């Protein structure tokens, strides 16, 4: 708790305490804490003197401001029309099989989360996905097996 408080204080000092700085502050928390906890959002509300519902409303709008704790590796498959038409659904199926989780879930041990995201601007090279900050384009089921297999074997 105390740590979250410190972090929120530090971030709001860095970006400013007014409403328009809400998003950078929330991003800062996600970078440090991997997710936005209830306690963190309440701290932000207090620090910025806005309601907790408003903080949550903003956070829940953005895929990248996750409010539940995800795995160490967040796989985000683009769900926009282009990637959808180019076969993202099949990719998801492959990864669901490999990770033994459903879309939106996190593996036991919190290593991988399989998620969808809104457009990540790679429509010309769809279907596309991100694993944390690394992006992968023009994906096929084979490519996905290879990439994810590599992650499963080599990254901890």
């Amino acid at each position, binding site marked *: 708790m105390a740590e979250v408080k410190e972090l929120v204080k530090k971030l709001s000092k860095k970006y400013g305490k007014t409403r328009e700085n809400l998003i950078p502050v929330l991003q800062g928390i996600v970078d440090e804490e991997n997710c936005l906890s209830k306690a963190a959002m309440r701290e932000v509300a207090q620090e910025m003197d806005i*309601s*907790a*519902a408003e903080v*949550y409303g903003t956070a*829940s709008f953005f895929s990248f401001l996750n409010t539940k704790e995800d795995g160490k590796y967040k796989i985000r498959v683009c769900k926009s029309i282009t990637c959808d038409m180019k076969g993202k659904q099949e990719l998801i199926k492959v990864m669901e099989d490999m990770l033994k989780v459903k879309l939106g879930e996190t593996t036991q041990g919190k290593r991988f989360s399989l998620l969808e995201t809104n457009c990540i601007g790679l429509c010309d090279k769809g279907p596309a996905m991100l694993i944390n900050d690394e992006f992968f384009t023009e994906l096929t089921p084979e490519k996905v097996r290879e990439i994810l297999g590599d992650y499963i074997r080599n990254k901890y």
Partner: protein
Amino acid sequence: MTDKVTLTIDGQNVTVDKGMSILDAAKQIDVRIPTLCHHEDLCVAGNCRICVVEQKGKNTLTPSCATPAEPGMEIETSTPKVRKARKDIMALLVSEHNTQCTTCYRSTNCELQDLAAEYNIDNDIYISVVKPDLNIDKSSWSIEKDDSKCIRCQRCVRTCAELQHVNALAVTERGKDMRVSTFMHLPMNEIVCTNCGQCITHCPTGALTERRYYDKIWDAIDDPDKHVVINTAPSVRVALGEMLGYEVGTRVTGKMVTALKKMGFDSVLDTDFSADLTIIEEANELLVRLKKAFVTKEEVALPMITSCSPGWVKFIEHMYPEHLAHLSTCKSPQQMFGALTKTYYAEKKGIDPSKIVSVAGMPCAAKKYEANRPEMRDSGFMDVDAGLTTREIGHMIKQAGIDFLELEDSNFDSIMGESTGAGVIFGATGGVMEAALRTAYFVITGRPVPFNDLNITPVRGLEGIKEATIKFEDCLPEYSFLEGVEAKFGIAHGLINARQIMDQIVEGKSPFVFIEIMACPGGCIGGGGQPIPTNDEIRKKRIAAIYEEDMNKPIRMSHENPEIVAIYEDYLEKPLGEKSHHLLHTKYRKRKRY
């Protein structure tokens, strides 16, 4: 004439102030454009699109609520294109709406239902996509939230932000998953909510309603062992008629009493009686605080603030927990009434208090919560068993098959049915202050307050924050410490205005000695339990009716109410006495703010 613009709507010329919307311009020439997300009290949202019109020279349709009138505009409000678009919009809204209208509390008083009927949404162009897993949130004592009926117009969100500055509700998620919800989708009883119910009166559908308790009341009425007592608040009598066929602003006091008796209430009493009692206690409390401040120089919290409005009380408990000492310790009239019903009333009537069911007919959603506060059991029982809103009472009258328009008038029962004009005006913003001043001035100087006909006009009206200054001269010896003092009194209604008043207090800059705060805009007449719709025009009419009722009362100062005189002689002994303290005063608690 640069601040006026002239445009044509459906071929008619209309000249309006610059900045006015096409929608409002159309209203001026009685051209009706349908709306859903629009509400007079709130800022423009323009998200439902039902108000679209065709503008000459433009390919796309124009939302009339969100577009300012411009010179030379040619607007058509009912072209085939407009009608087709509106019908499509309605069909889309209905496809996402839980259309079980027959079981909906808002049926026949629903803006979506009305428009759906008008546009005759009889086809199946869009299949229903209501999410079956949406649960009805019944966790709060006051407010029920049913997302399957939400059309996401965000009127509640804007109400909570703009009128009340609580922001309990927010828009969450996005796209097809977008919902009006709370922090982390927590249930309504776990969030920072004042229960004021303004979201209910601003909701166009049945997504937000009050928790209903009338079935419980019918059961009690039907139980021969139970003695069911109802007391009705001042603003119920000036609004109830709206639900039963009367014009807005009609006083239906006598008919309401007759109807309640016909329905089987064993005793129909008047909350105004306990409003008068509140005034006696509160005025005396104020004088004690002033004496401490002026004479004995004790540390005392001034300004003192009224505590009649349970929405306001919960607001200060959440938002300014360090400043609760400013609140008067007086219970609200409802809770005073409840505590006395199961003690004084029971004793006088020789009825076993455990057999009494005490019901409060209120213009309020927060009163339901207040009745269920654990500390409100000073009579040894639950002081108030259930709070009903004006709307619920209207429904009950209809359920009983009573032809309201044809009823004779009758008077409140006795005891605790006698009231003064001062008790009546509690229902309007500024009313508690006016009532308190009528009595306090008399107590201090021995003379009536120096306003024409006792009408303290500066405290009246719909301005958000009002103030009045009264100079005390020729005081009675006991109050000589107030001689020549010019005291300032403040009034705020709507919690966003309450916040301004509180911020002054926090900064130590409040100029007032006594402040009245009501949670709802307009005071109780605009309460969260009042008939829907409510807007400023309606508020003004209800307020006018309240003051009319006041002028028609033979006695207009609380301390002259013969039943009040009697209760102090027979039972309470003296204001702020031991019994009063036990039954009529309460404590507040600090709550979390986020």
